[in-house]
């Protein structure tokens, strides 16, 4: 029994990482109905971007993280302004296919630049240290940190949306870009800000994921699928819903893997499909 509790706890903590993956996807869909197929590949790109900072400059991954997050935000802003804004419109096809093309370009660009080898980021003994609770339950400090950071980020972004002027502009543009532009809000600039925010969150997810496990240029699609599943399980339009969806996905994967080592990822997919059948609007959708 106690081992199962341990498994659930590990699953919840894993969900923290997925919440970081999913938050950006949730924001871009909420603000501009953009489903970024390259989402996972940009998460992996953030991991690779951290590598030279750590290996060549000798920075600690936690020191490199803010730099990478800033660079990713700048990339996101530029990408939206330079490319994706041209594709947004009533037709959903262009943004989907352009981000799909980006996904292939990023994946193969990384393979060309860093080879297909698995990489990881090291943070020393912190990586494996854990908090022992009784005999069977141990909580890793690092997974716990990831979970707390994910919760803080979700809280922070929710506040950003509800309390600040930028948040108001984001919500207004999401509701009605034409009317928002009458109030002096430049929709294209707002969209670029949303993608910048999404990219900064991806950077956090990418670096944490690189510390937690290894990554290769091909890791992107899986990250996209987990992020997407978390968003759909949680229900569209709510960041805390996405967070909860990520936790459900993490627990499903952990329990599945506990039953059979090969069943973890499939269990996550099956829970996602089950939610799709039973509650297509998600478990925690805002009314």
């Amino acid at each position, binding site marked *: 029994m106690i081992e199962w509790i341990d498994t659930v706890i590990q699953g919840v903590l894993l969900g923290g990482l997925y919440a970081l993956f999913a938050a950006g996807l949730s924001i871009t869909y909420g603000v501009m109905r953009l489903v970024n197929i390259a989402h996972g590949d940009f998460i992996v790109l953030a991991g690779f971007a951290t590598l030279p900072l750590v290996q060549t400059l000798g920075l600690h991954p936690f020191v490199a993280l803010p730099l990478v997050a800033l660079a990713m935000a700048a990339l996101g802003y530029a990408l939206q302004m330079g490319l994706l804004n041209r594709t947004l419109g009533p037709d959903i*096809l*262009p943004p989907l296919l352009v981000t799909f093309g980006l996904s292939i370009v990023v994946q193969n660009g990384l393979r060309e630049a860093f080879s297909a080898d698995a990489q990881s980021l090291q943070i020393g003994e912190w990586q494996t240290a854990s908090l022992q609770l009784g005999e069977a339950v141990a909580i890793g400090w690092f997974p716990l940190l990831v979970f707390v950071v994910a919760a803080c980020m979700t809280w922070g972004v929710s506040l950003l949306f509800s309390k600040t002027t930028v948040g108001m502009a984001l919500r207004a543009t999401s509701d009605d870009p034409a009317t928002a532009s009458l109030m002096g809000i430049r929709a294209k600039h707002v969209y670029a800000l949303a993608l910048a925010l999404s990219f900064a969150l991806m950077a956090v997810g990418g670096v944490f994921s690189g510390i937690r496990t290894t990554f290769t240029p091909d890791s992107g699609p899986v990250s996209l699928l987990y992020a997407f599943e978390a968003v759909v399980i949680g229900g569209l339009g709510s960041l805390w819903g996405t967070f909860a969806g990520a936790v459900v996905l993490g627990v499903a994967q952990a329990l599945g893997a506990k039953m059979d080592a090969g069943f973890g990822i499939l269990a996550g*997919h099956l829970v996602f*499909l089950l939610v799709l059948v039973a509650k*297509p609007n998600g478990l925690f959708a805002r009314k």
Partner: protein
Amino acid sequence: MDSAIDFVVLRSTPANRVIGWALLAFCMALISVPWWGDASLMRWMVEVICFLVLAQMWNLMAGYGGLISVGQQAFVGLGGYGLFVLAQHLRINPFLAVPLAGVAAAILAVPMSKLVFRLRGGYFAVGTWVVSEVCRIWVSNLSLVGGGSGQSLTVMASIQRDVRESVTYWMACALLIVTFATVYGLLRSRFGLGLTAIRDSEAAAESQGVRVATLKFQVYVLSALGTAMVGALYYLNVLRIAPASAFDLGWVVAAIFMVVIGGIGTLEGPIVGAAVFFFLRWLLSDYGSWYWLVMGGVAIVVMVFFPKGLWGSIQQRWGVQVFPLQRRLKVG
């Protein structure tokens, strides 16, 4: 207003009659290959035809039904594995097993559609991808078909080599011709008008009495049928299957690039796209991942600056159609 305006609806131009004869001659030439071509040419052509039909099936969904799937590799894999189960394990004639595998996958597509149609637009796209991942993991755990390492189609050894190669090739030709004829016939019919209406505006189509949900379902299942036959035929040609390659995302990547570059929503587009695809593959064959980088870059540029693709741009400028689908009004 005393007289109604005289008009006729033109569905083709005189040039189309010439093109029609040319197409017929081309089909004859295609069918005659086993009498003069060697085995490697036939194998290569089967591969080209597989990619072309795959692209056309994706085009039918995306370009006409407005359904963007990133999970068509599910049907390639199911078709391929369907062939192996039917031919290798149930001892059904391998050539007969190809259409049967297609039908089996189309039947599986029915419950799958219930899942993915819960999602719309971009989420539909990623949803189809999840379903294909589920299929891949499921097949990887089936010991009957060799699990993760796959298996070989050893029953083909009992068929004489030149018979095997020629019949596989002719089946590919048949699949190509039937696919284009079916899609052409469908799109010229009431069904095609409904689909085009859905693509342009779902709400408006619904208000005009188009049964949007039914039509989308039919397109999804039809596309699954064609795609699965591509999978069966492709693995009949290469004789060995494994889950990682059969359910590879690369299948749909290729289909999307061919259709986008050639011209989405035109019957001719996938042909042009396939030509570009195979030309670039040949040109960049020594450069590894650069091939995909260039393909991705070209697809992005085409999508942003020439959203109608190569053929779509040609068609818009000169009004040529190999497969006449438009209706033109001639007044007077």
